[in-house]
């Protein structure tokens, strides 16, 4: 178990999330894929904090950054769910290819 293993898992998870964001139709599934990408970033940060030649303060910063990422992810998720509910109420659909009012 070394740093490269963590980085490869993070890269794979990020790519999977990227595929989900690009290929899925449902806004809820796109939201889930974004969560996957955020978690890939967290794996990377934690891996670096544990394995690199860092001082204690730098290791603590790695974990603090992960706490902030989780916080922002939670806030983003709450807002996105609110927007999806609003969208469903107005358009009776959450498929992103049917929401094209601003397309020209």
């Amino acid at each position, binding site marked *: 178990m070394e740093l*490269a293993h963590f980085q490869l898992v993070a890269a794979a998870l990020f790519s999977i999330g990227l595929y989900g964001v690009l290929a899925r139709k449902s806004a809820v599934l796109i939201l889930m894929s974004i969560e996957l990408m955020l978690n890939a970033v967290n794996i990377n940060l934690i891996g670096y904090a544990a394995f*690199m030649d860092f001082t204690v303060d730098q*290791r603590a910063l790695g974990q603090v950054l992960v706490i902030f990422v989780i916080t922002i992810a939670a806030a983003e998720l709450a807002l996105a769910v609110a927007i999806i509910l609003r969208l469903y109420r107005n358009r009776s659909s959450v498929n992103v290819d049917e929401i094209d009012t601003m397309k020209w």
Partner: protein
Amino acid sequence: MATPSLILFFAAAALTIGGGLGVVMTRNIVYAAFALLTSLMGVAGLFLLAYAEFLALVQVLIYGGAVIILILFSLMLTRIQDFDRLTDNNQWPLAIIVAITVFGIISAAIISDNPQIGDRQGISLEMLGNSLFTEWAIPFEIASLVLLVALIGAILLVRTKGGKD
């Protein structure tokens, strides 16, 4: 060399990646939500293996407790009639190419990189709390403000006049 930690690491990595693949491949959106839960618990296992015990607990509580519940609620409030008929949009071959290219570039960078590996160690919860509440106290307060604004914004977005629906 199959040390116990390496075996545990591969188990957690398999959970993480398998769950992620489940999210993007399944046709049933409820299965996708549970695959996301599997993946996030795998990430918690990876955190444990990288000496971040507190964050592993936070991951289980926030994602397992709050995020999955919120996503399941949003599923139940939208489109319950076609849960199991998900389709991808027609640019999915392009999406596969983009994802594989990104993975290839990142993994090439990882393999060719030669980082300064130090001794493997974690930090105590006391150190983490000390750092969070002294050096990073102002960003911490701003994060709490962001959460408050997001909460108010979410309420405002879903509120309807007259209290019906």
